[in-house]
C-alpha cells in the first residue's frame, strides 16, 4: 500500500514533547510489573507469557521500524494457508 509521507502533521520533536510523559508512565508501569514478578513467590522465568514479554521488549529496543505491528505478530498464533484442507472444508 502506498503511504503518504505528509500524513503525520507533527514533527518528531513535537511528538516527543507531547508524548514523553505518557511514554515515561508506560515504561514505569512495565518496570513495576517486572519488579512485582520478582518480589512474588514462585518462578515464571520459563513461562511462555514471560518469554513473549521478553521478546516484545527486545522489539522495542531494536533499530527496526514498524514496532507495533511486529509486537502484534509476536503475540499471535501462526496462520496455516492450508487450514481449509485440514478442516476438510474444500
Amino acid at each position, binding site marked *: *500500500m502506498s503511504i503518504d509521507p505528509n*500524513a503525520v502533521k*507533527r514533527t518528531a520533536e513535537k511528538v516527543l514533547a507531547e508524548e514523553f510523559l505518557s511514554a515515561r508512565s508506560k515504561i514505569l508501569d512495565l518496570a513495576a510489573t517486572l519488579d512485582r514478578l520478582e518480589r512474588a513467590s514462585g518462578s515464571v522465568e520459563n513461562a511462555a507469557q514471560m518469554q513473549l514479554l521478553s521478546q516484545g521488549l527486545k522489539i522495542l529496543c531494536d533499530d527496526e521500524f514498524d514496532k507495533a505491528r511486529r509486537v*502484534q505478530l509476536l503475540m*499471535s498464533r501462526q496462520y496455516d494457508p492450508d487450514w481449509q484442507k485440514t478442516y476438510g*472444508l474444500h
Partner: protein
Amino acid sequence: MDYIDPHIHMVSRTTDDYETLARMGCVAMSEPAFWAGFDRGSVESFRDYFRQLTEFEPKRAAQFGIRHFTWLCINAKEAENVSLSREVIAMIPMFLSAKNVLGIGEIGLNKNTKNESTIFLEHLELAVQYDQQILIHTPHLEDKFQGTRMILDMLMGDSRINRSRVLVDHVEEHTIEAVLENGFWAGMTLYPVTKCTPQRAADMIEKYGPERLMANSAGDWGPSKPTAIPDLIMELKRRGHSRELIRRVVYDNPRQFFSQSKNFDLAALPG
C-alpha cells in the same frame, strides 16, 4: 462534530448512554448481533433478541434523535453449536425486511475452529442469497491474525462476494493492511486493553489514509467506552488533522458504506 458509531451494542447500555452519545454528536449507530455473555439455549432466545434489535432499540435511540440500524446473525462464540446456529440462520430471513436491518453480522471467528468456519460459510451463503451487506467480527488477541487471514480466505474464495459491501471489524496493526489491500472496508475498535486505543487508531489513519477506514466503540456489557469515537476525534484534532479528514473517518465513510443497504436512511426516525 456529528459522527456515526458503526459498531455498538446498545442492548447492553443504559438510556443515559443514548443521551450522552447524542450530546457528544452521535447521530446514527449500527448494532450488530453478538454474544450476550452467556450461550443462549434455543432459537426462541434469538427471536426475542432480533425483535429487541429491530423494534425496541430504534425507538429508544429515536428519543434522542439517533438513528439506530442493526445486523443479524448468530455470533462466532455460539456458532460452535452447529444445530442451534442453523436454526437461527433459517429464522433470519423473516427479520430482513425490518426497516433498520443493514445486513448479516457480526459474523466471524472466535477460536478459529472448524465449526465456526462452517457456520461462517453458511452465513455468507445467506448474505449472498438475500443480497445483504456483511459485517465481520475478527477474533481477539492471539487469535486475531490467524482468524483474520482465515476469514479473508473464505471471503475471497467466493466470487459472489462484493468486497465493497463487506466491513471487516476490529482490525489492528497486523491485520489492517490485508483487509484494505484486498478491497474490503476496515473498522478499528476503540476498546480498552484488548483492542485499539484512540492513539493507535490515529496512527493507523496516518499510515494508511482514510479510504475505506472507519472507527467504532463496540460499546457493550464488558469493559468498554461508548464515547470512544469522540476520544478519537479529539486525538486527531490534537495532532493537527483537518476537519475534513476527521469527518471522513467518523461520518462520511460509515455513511457511504451503509448507503449500499436499501434500509439505510439517515433522515428517517421511527415514530
